[in-house]
């Protein structure tokens, strides 16, 4: 049973692994952080948020200051999907953003008796209905209910 935990991550309860939703790549122990299985890049924030006023003339330009702020980009080593970004001061340890109780998650879904890939969507409203089955297995995001 695979539980969609974010836009790009499953937890596979049978293997207890984090899995990339777009490509099925295993990213490591689901009792730990999925970040362990990712590739990380330390991005100069000015490359993402370009200056709108001239950085030659001004200190404050609409671009974050790289001495204050870095953007860590986390991607799947197999398919290159960018699954998370993190805005951090330079040198600050990356945040372990999610740690889940896998035993409790298993019990929760056993009690629900449903396939999480078929019942999880984005919330209320018809636009929020989605297909959480993995796209790499030939499913595409369209309504199945």
């Amino acid at each position, binding site marked *: 049973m695979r*539980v*969609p935990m*974010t*836009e*790009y991550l499953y937890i596979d309860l049978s293997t207890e692994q984090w899995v990339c939703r777009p490509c099925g790549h295993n990213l490591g122990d689901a009792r730990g952080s999925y*970040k*362990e299985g990712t*590739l*990380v*890049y330390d991005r100069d*924030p000015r*490359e*993402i*948020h370009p200056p*709108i*006023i*001239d950085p030659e*003339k001004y200190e*404050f*330009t*609409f*671009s*974050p*200051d790289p*001495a*204050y*702020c870095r*953007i860590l980009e*986390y*991607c799947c080593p197999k*398919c*290159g*999907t*960018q*699954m*998370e*970004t993190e*805005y951090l*001061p*330079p*040198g600050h*340890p*990356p*945040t*372990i*953003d999610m*740690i*889940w109780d896998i035993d*409790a*998650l298993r019990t*929760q879904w056993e009690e629900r008796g449903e396939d*999480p890939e078929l*019942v*999880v*969507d*984005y*919330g*209320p409203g018809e636009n*929020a209905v*989605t297909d959480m089955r993995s796209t790499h297995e030939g499913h595409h995001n369209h309504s199945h209910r």
Partner: protein
Amino acid sequence: MTLTTNDTGNPQEILSAQEQQWVDKFMDETTLFLGPDPEIMRNHQIHARTAYEDECISKGISPLEMDRIRKRLAGSLDEAFEMCESMGAAPGAKWADLSVAVYTAEGDVTYLSNRGVIAFSAVLHHPIRYIMKNWKDEPTVGIHPGDGFFHNDSRYGMVHNTDQSMLVPVMRDGQIIAWVGATIHEGENGACEPGGMPSGSETPFDDGLRASPIKIVERGHLRRDLLTFLQHSTRDPKLMLADIKVKMGAVRRVIESVDRIIEEVGQESFVAALRVTVENVEVEVRRRIKELPDGTVTFNQFMDSTLKENILIKFACKITVKGDRLIVDLTGTGPEILNRAINSPLGSTKAFMTQAILSYWWPDLPRSTGALSPIEVISEEHSWADAGYDAPVGQSLQGSFRGFSALQTAYAKLQFSTPKKYSNVIAPWFNQINDFLWGGTTQHGEQVGNLCADLNGMGGGAKAFRDGEDAVAPLFCAMADIAEQEVMEEEVPFLQLVSKRLVRDNQGFGKYRGGMGYEMIVASRGTPNWGFMTVTSGSKFSSITGMFGGYGCPTYPLSIVKGINIYDIIRKDPSQFDLSIERIMNEQPYEGGSYQSAHMGLQFDVAKEGELYMISQGSGGGYGDVLERDPEMVATDLQLDRISAQVATDLYAVVWNPETFVVDVQGTKDARAEARKRRIARGTPFREFIKDFVTEEPPADLLYYGSWGQDNDEEVFATHWGGQEPQRVKGKLSEIPLVMIPDRRVLKIEAQDKRIRELEAKYGETVLHKS
């Protein structure tokens, strides 16, 4: 209090009941000062059910009858809300920055008006608890039918000090059975700068009016002595009088409805309905927490300004779910700064956590104190999110809005796997008050101080299935208004020369992008005395992030052109009326102008006629990988000039025909495949990455406050000025020295003095320096 044998010094001596009564009476009568009460102020749980409530509930009330009472109350509160909105003198009132509520006898919010600021549902039980504890049985005060209590100081429970309340008891046979209250963001409050939200306050006394709960209306009559005192304490006496009357009128209207409801259903059913609603919300919140997966989601924020200088201060937050418990732990958050305005009382921080819960987690729940009640909050007093009594809190929204973002952002991860959701999966909402505050003498000769409605134009976060909405609503009020600028210009002496024009590339990029913010360019006109302020952080470090691979907002500068009069310029040459921040700052078209960019903490700055002040509203966060964005949506944004060609190419990897904006489908597919390959090539495996990236301590030249990482959140770093030079200290929050930051102008002069002496030595000049 109860004395123990140790206190009396004689282990054999135990006070008799009569003696203890004398001691208690003595202590009551000689209390020096009834300040904020930690027992009240640190408690956000609903009050225990009283014996009378228990009696009312035990007599039985049908769900249908309860539903009828709730709906009647909701209708009445919405009517009262509209009264405040239509008649309120405060600009904030006209744009929905207010709320009207019904409370239980002990002060728990049962129901809040549907429109307005939800955060009030988690903070106004504090002043009512204070009134019940201290004034109910106090012979010089007491509580009687027709009384109304006023307060504004957030140390006694308020969103922030610029809001003012009117809390009125509903009484039957001398007993309080409920309260009705109206609260409005009034703006001006007599602080060191006009407008009620001073970015420059350096002591709690700079924050302005410090009204603890006082009885301003006595048995239906407004007390002129206290009213005069309140008017005299602020810059806008007319506003004070008008809105006290407006709030009282709105509250009276709700009480009339309450009277009719009680006539129809009886007092006991009414009291039971109030109490059961609060309890039901609490029970339902616990049930919903249980639907979430057990685990911990951590989200840290870094704020880059004291509003006087750039620093980095952390707002740490770990949210743990275990069964039906949800624990919010703020340990690791940076210390309060004792001479800066950014600190927030814990009650205000919690109020904005509730704002996230009731508008972004479970918007279908009644807005009740029951919503936050079952949630546990771990926080140590004297952090900047949990300010002590001696810390200024003039711009406490800096801290409290981070409380909102902590819960709003984390919830996407907390709720993603749940099959039943009550709100959509969404990226962070913009969380700053990118807005002009203003003050001075109007064209009508009146003294005023307040703010523009543009703070209500925050960009919305992208949803998992669509772009965020542009300039849609502030995080604190879903149905607020950004007002008609032309109407405002009839009352205040400045023009918005550019208003509500979107700024290109001001987006949180993603598969779905955040809602965009617009630019505002203002200049004063026809006034002997005017000035502007800004009260925002996020000029060096983006104030919100993206979600699941999307990016956050950019950073926002304040741009100013001094030494020109734009009205003279465009009068002589109308073609110069082509204004945008980008053009003016990059081309510097006005001769003789001084062009400056700065962070967005501007203390009250005297604005001469025609000098330009320019800012941009912020963007919501983006959702998902930029390379998954529909290329047609990228082309549309390009065509509308919402993004630059650089962003379309470098971030979205879209190939298009610049003449026709037609997407090259295959070219885009190839470019994106290449972009993915480049990501894989430049990325470093996590373990290797942290070896290179992570440092033991914050960079030496950053003025950093808070924990570093999350392994040891109890140890916080701070920068301390014990002597002339800043010094890095670390330790537990309770152990590090008090943090006060020297005046930046003094530091600048010292640095310049040092340089002068270096140059004098270098060139052999002998100058006698007298001190």
